[in-house]
């Protein structure tokens, strides 16, 4: 168990190292000059060179990368080119909005997607299944930004036209200041992110449940005289926790790395919008910081999923 964890952690470190090198060199070969962008059109060549030297961009790339690595392992991701703020501080300022969005959306898509998937799978071909499948089709094919815009139009703009405020247009209000205001502001972003993802979870749940309900041990559970409710939830659903966990791990990591579209639509100052701004400004330290953060979440999520397998599946438990 310990050696398993140690090897997974070592591998995670390697993944992050490769990722950092990849992003670093990608920006080096990409067109565009951050120094020129910072100094502006009118600056002279000498001024630009001065800025470039200040940023350390005149040194050979391997030197730049090594000093970057040295700083990173000490927890220093450098400073933003644009406003000289530490990247770690910028990121930690943005985390609350992203985490708020993530937690609510995850709960909402699970609460929506899993029951729809189970309902669909219990009576394949029935009208309920067709409704479930309709939800899946619409949800999967709806672009997030269209859904976000539509919700804004229906629940913010139209009530405003009628003279009252049903939901705010967006923005982030801290949870600690007032949880109700926080939830009220987060509601539309949650729904936007949750609806499309819920469709994916409904599809996954439906498919896995259909397969599991054909298993012999489900017949055994029925032959025992269990109620259909227990057969479906205790024996059927229990078995699909493993694939659901796999999917959920990856999805949570992806949201924490920045739900770019949703954050943009609702003006949430989260990681995703930070990344978008940084790309526009060619603010390399921020971009690398955000990519590393997203990568970190993904490797951590994968390790968590592997640990959960041990809890969920006694066969895995005994193998270790």
């Amino acid at each position: 168990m310990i050696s398993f964890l140690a090897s997974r952690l070592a591998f995670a470190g390697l993944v992050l190292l490769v990722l950092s090198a990849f992003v670093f060199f990608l920006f080096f070969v990409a067109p565009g000059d951050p120094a020129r962008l910072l100094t502006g059109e009118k600056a002279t060549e000498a001024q630009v060179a001065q800025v470039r030297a200040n940023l350390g961009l005149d040194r050979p790339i391997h030197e730049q990368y090594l000093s970057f690595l040295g700083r990173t392992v000490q927890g220093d991701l450098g400073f933003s080119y644009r406003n000289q703020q530490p990247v770690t501080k910028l990121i930690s300022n943005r985390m609350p909005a992203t985490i708020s969005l993530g937690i609510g959306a995850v709960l909402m898509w699970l609460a929506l997607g899993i029951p729809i998937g189970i309902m669909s799978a219990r009576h394949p071909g029935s009208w309920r299944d067709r409704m479930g499948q309709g939800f899946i089709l619409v949800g999967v094919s709806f672009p997030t930004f269209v859904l976000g815009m539509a919700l804004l139009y229906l629940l913010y703009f139209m009530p405003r036209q009628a003279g009252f405020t049903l939901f705010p247009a967006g923005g982030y209000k801290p949870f600690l200041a007032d949880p109700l205001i926080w939830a009220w502001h987060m509601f539309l972003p949650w729904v936007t992110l949750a609806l499309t993802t819920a469709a994916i979870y409904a599809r996954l749940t439906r498919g896995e449940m259909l397969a599991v309900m054909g298993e012999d041990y489900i017949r055994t559970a029925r032959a025992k005289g269990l109620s259909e409710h227990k057969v479906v939830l205790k024996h059927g659903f229990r078995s699909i926790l493993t694939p659901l966990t796999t999917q959920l791990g990856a999805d949570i990591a992806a949201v924490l790395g920045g739900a770019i579209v949703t954050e943009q639509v609702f003006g949430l100052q989260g990681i995703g919008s930070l990344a978008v701004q940084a790309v526009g400004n060619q603010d390399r330290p921020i971009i690398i910081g955000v990519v590393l953060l997203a990568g970190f979440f993904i490797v951590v999520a994968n390790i968590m999923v592997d640990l959960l397998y041990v809890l969920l599946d006694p066969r895995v438990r005994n193998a270790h």
Partner: protein
Amino acid sequence: MAILEARNLNIAIPTGDGLVHAAQNVSFSVEAGELFGIAGESGSGKSVLAQAILGLLPTAEISGEIWFEGRDLLTLGPRDLQKLRGARIAMISQDPLSCLHPYYTIGSQISEAILTHKHIGKAAAKRETIEVLAKVGIAAPDERFSHYPHQFSGGMRQRVMIAMAVALNPALLIADEPTTALDVTVQAQIVELLDAMRRELGTAVMMITHDLGLLASVADHVMVMYAGNRMEIGRRSAVLAAPAHPYTAGLLASSPSNHAPGSPLTSIAGQPPSLLARPSGCAFAPRCAQVMPICSLERPPERAFADGSHSICWRESKAPAPMAPVVRQTSKQAASVATDDPIVTVRDLRFGYPSGGPFSKRAGVEILKGISLTLERGRTLGIVGESGCGKSTLARVIAGLVPASSGVIEIAGQDIAGLDAAQWHSLRKTVQLVFQDPFGSLNPRRRVGSIIGDPFRIHGVASGAERHKRVRDLMATVGLNPEHYNRFPSEFSGGQRQRIGIARALALNPSLIIYDEPVSALDVSIQAQVLNLIRALQKELGLSYLFISHDLAVVRHVSDEIAVMKEGRIVEMGDADQIYTTPQHPYTKSLLAASNPLPRLEGAS
């Protein structure tokens, strides 16, 4: 007193292809405490009956009556049926691994059944569970209570299933192929346990199986199903010793244990029919040896015989024993030419998986622990053993699919260890394999013609029209219709697919064919057809066979010599008759004792 009585049961299951008529006008009754056997091949509708009784076929159209403890089960609502399931009618089925939930301990799964029907506390349910586990022969039941299904062997899992089934002392236990997935020595123990449970608890057992030998040893009454029809029903002694229906007689005759070793088996020609159509006459008419013109026109009447058995047949008398081909040979050596020229010599062969590396706790596993054997040209060596004994690994090592850890394998005098790529290529022509699963071992997306033609293509032997012709010849040789050249494997039945596998193996005129459980996935009547083909091909083409099976009767039937394997070693090897009649090793004796020979048919010579 009958505790279960089915009257004129018709079951139709809607599928994508149409209505499957899984049971047609089936009536039977099960007496309290008896063992009632239902026999039939796959697709005969026997398992569907069990599920209909338990009310587990929600989409099926069912008509008729099923009386159980004074109530017609077909009129009960889902709640009433649910109360009966597990409490009054319990069920165990074929594969005890897939029937137990992998994520719950066996104790909690049994307790769950008890708690569903009894209003007692968890601790009391646990006590009852431990009691019933002890009753079915699980050692240290209080410790085993919290173990998971994967920590049990196949036989132990089936004991757990039986414990779950008898925990609430039901009046009826439906056992659907309870021993099919188990090794032969374990099978005997499970049947013994079922028998003991019904005697001790007075539970009637409805045993569904394809294995007539099994029913012959334990059943009180036997019902024979074919294509959803009840062909014959009666006392075990009547049905199995003096069958009334030609189908029963044919099934009994197909079994190798009713034949002199090496003689052609009496097979039932053709394939079981589709259940989508309801034939106007007798369902068995197209395959029946005693068919009369009326058989395929009108449904046959039910006939009662003096010994109490009933059959549906147009014949007025009992089926004659179809024993025509039984010609006892004094010696099988007449059939196969013995020479002093070994095709395979294996000396002290070892094979194992190494440990998982210096950092792993996984120890190395040795699967073959010093095997030595010799197979003469033109003869058949049967290798028999239970699952996990290493017999399939031996086949793969001899075929050169995996390298041996140590030891010598010589094929046609050539040591295969030192071969280069080109020599391997030519050796492939000499040694061919036929696998167990005729469904999994053929690529479903390729046409049969190209599957059989592969060896010609790979070895550059024949191409174009020449290859086409040779493939068609091969198909004819193994009894396939050459017209079906362009069909896909899914369009063939199990027996036909195994013929495809054999045709492919024959393509390059090999000297040695290794059969790995070639008939164990096939029904008895089909098995006989394939075994006959295998024998005939050997005589015709002078082939040498290595024939691997868990089924002693089958191995004895085809083999000149038999090697008995246990835990990676050959414990006994010798002439087939000698192994069968005067086994020396205790393991061979227990294998023989555990197999269920059929009763000898009356009139068999």
